[in-house]
């Protein structure tokens, strides 16, 4: 019984891609939690790893000698059909920022999924977010709109995590 990607929720598809090594070029996420609760925020996906991938023989040697060993994490919030508000985004950002500090992470990704269209304040908030240690993204499964934060880590969500592919987005929102 194989999971059919057509009927799979976007979060599951996104996680599948990450498990298959979707972030390998930028970070090696090695552990995946679902419904991970921190205080009163529940993350649909919490993945952690490092920038030094394990590999085998040559790639492992290359990683050990060249790549820095920074801890990184990915957080994903699935709002479903509830309205994604700036307040919720801010709260999640604060929680992730605290975890980033507590666990000495070099950077973290925070991705929001919503079944509704992204409200303009969310688009504005995320696209203006520019703190370098946290990359933000929001994706609407109904309109297939994807918004990325205006920093290196945020832009990498589009490139490396292939969020637009998960959403099947054919029209991209650009900063």
């Amino acid at each position: 019984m194989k999971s059919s990607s057509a009927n799979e929720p976007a979060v599951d598809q996104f996680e599948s891609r990450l498990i298959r090594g979707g972030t390998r070029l930028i970070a090696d996420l090695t552990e995946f939690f679902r419904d991970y609760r921190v205080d009163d925020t529940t993350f649909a996906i919490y993945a952690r790893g490092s920038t030094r991938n394990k590999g085998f023989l040559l790639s492992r040697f290359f990683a050990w000698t060249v790549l820095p060993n920074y801890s990184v994490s990915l957080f994903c919030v699935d709002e479903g059909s509830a309205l994604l508000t700036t307040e919720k985004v801010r709260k999640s950002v604060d929680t992730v920022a605290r975890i980033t500090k507590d666990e000495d992470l070099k950077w973290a990704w925070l991705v929001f999924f919503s079944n509704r269209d992204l409200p303009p304040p969310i688009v504005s908030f995320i696209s203006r977010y520019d703190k370098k240690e946290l990359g933000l993204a929001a994706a609407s499964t109904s309109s297939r709109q994807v918004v990325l934060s205006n920093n290196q880590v945020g832009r990498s969500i589009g490139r490396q995590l292939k969020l637009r592919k998960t959403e099947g987005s054919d029209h991209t929102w650009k900063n």
Partner: protein
Amino acid sequence: MEKLTKTQIPILASYSMPLVLLSAFAINALLVAFQISGGPLRLLLLAGSFPIGFVFGRLIYTRRSHIEIQFDNSTFRVIKGSKEVVTGFWKSYRMVSLVIDQFGKPNLRLYETKEGEHVDLPISRTNAEPQRFRDYAQSLVTGQRPRGISPQVAEAA
């Protein structure tokens, strides 16, 4: 109890191939002794080294490396070869995660406490679909009713 298992072909092949080679040498020695030096009979007899090697390879594989995970709604057991390597109750654990091993294969990890002691279930060596089995295990660990769908994956024909 439900079972998750899969024949790991690369490991089976690694056990069998030296035995295929050895049995081919033995058959060849017999052919020389009986002065069968050519023709289709020689080829046919030498080809017998494959089934012989794979039968003995399979025996060694089954006794040493074959992984089977048995579980129901309260307990689980991991059997490697002829030994039971892990056993426990789902309720003894608090958290569940998928851990990617060095070969990029996902395995299930059960935590007794947050960031504490854990056990790994090698589901990548079975026919389990990792995410669905993780969801199933998580529902048992957190005490929710398990979803009706079996996490087993039909082995490819």
